C-alpha cells in the first residue's frame, strides 16, 4: 500500500492548529471541557451547513475529520442528506444515523471499561 506523505503533513498541521486554537481559548478564558467540545462541534455544524466543510475536508483529510469539528459536520451532513432523500423524516433521522458508529462505540466501550477498571485519577493528583 502507498501512503501519501502530504496527507499526513496536512493532517498534522491543520489538526495541530485547531488544537492550538483550543489551547489558546483554554488558557485565555478558563473554558470548561464540555463548553470547548460544544463550541467546536457547533463550528463544525455551521461549516457543514454553509457548505464550506467538504472543501476543508478534501484539503485537510484527517486534520478536519478527527477534531470534534468533523463530528459536528457529519451530524449536519446526515441531517441535510436525510432532508434531500426523505424530507422532514430524514431531517430527524439523518444526523444520528451518520454518527451512530462513533456514539455506539463510545457508549459500549465506556460501559465495558468502567466495569473492568477502577478510576485512577486519585493517584495522579
Amino acid at each position: 500500500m502507498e501512503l501519501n506523505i502530504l496527507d499526513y503533513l496536512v493532517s498534522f498541521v491543520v489538526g495541530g492548529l485547531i488544537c492550538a486554537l483550543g489551547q489558546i481559548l483554554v488558557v485565555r478564558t478558563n473554558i470548561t471541557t464540555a463548553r470547548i467540545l460544544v463550541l467546536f462541534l457547533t463550528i463544525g455544524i455551521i461549516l457543514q451547513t454553509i457548505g464550506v466543510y467538504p472543501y476543508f475536508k478534501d484539503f485537510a483529510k484527517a486534520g478536519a475529520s478527527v477534531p470534534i469539528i468533523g463530528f459536528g459536520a457529519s451530524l449536519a451532513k446526515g441531517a441535510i442528506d436525510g432532508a434531500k432523500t426523505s424530507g422532514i423524516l430524514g431531517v430527524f433521522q439523518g444526523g444520528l444515523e451518520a454518527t451512530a458508529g462513533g456514539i455506539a462505540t463510545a457508549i459500549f466501550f465506556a460501559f465495558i471499561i468502567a466495569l473492568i477498571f477502577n478510576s485512577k485519577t486519585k493517584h495522579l493528583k
Partner: protein
Amino acid sequence: MDSEKRNQNYNTYVEAKVPKTKFWQALLKAFVVGGLICCVGQLFYDLYAYWFPTLSEAQLGSAMLSTIIAITAILTGLGIFDWIGAFAGAGSVIPITGFANSIVSPSMEFKKEGIIFGICVKMFSIAGPVIVCGVVGSVLAGLIYLII
C-alpha cells in the same frame, strides 16, 4: 494595617507563588499532540481503505473514528490517557479522543455508585451537551436546507 494594604500584599504574594503558565510551551504541546492524533486517524483511514476497498468514504471515516474512540477508551481505562491529557491540554480534548475520554472518565469515576446510577447515569455528565447540541444543531441544519 488597613485592609486595602493587606489585600495588596496578599495579591503580590499570590502572584509570586502561582506558577507562571508556560503559554508557548503548552501551545506547542497541544499543536504537536493534536496533530499526531490526526495523523493516527489518517493512518487508520488509509489502512481501512487498503483492507476494505469496497467501503465508501463515509464508512471509512466512521470506522476510523470508532477505532480512535475505542483506543482512547482503553487508554483511559488503563490510566494512560490521564497522562496524555495532562501533557497535551487541548491537544487531547479537541480531537474525538476528548469526546471519548469525557464519556469513559465519569463512567469509571462514578462506578462505585452502582451500574445504573453510577455508570449509566453519569456517563454523559460531560459529553451530554455535545450530543444535545449536536442533535439540535443537525436538525436545525436539515430544516434550514428544507426551507431554502
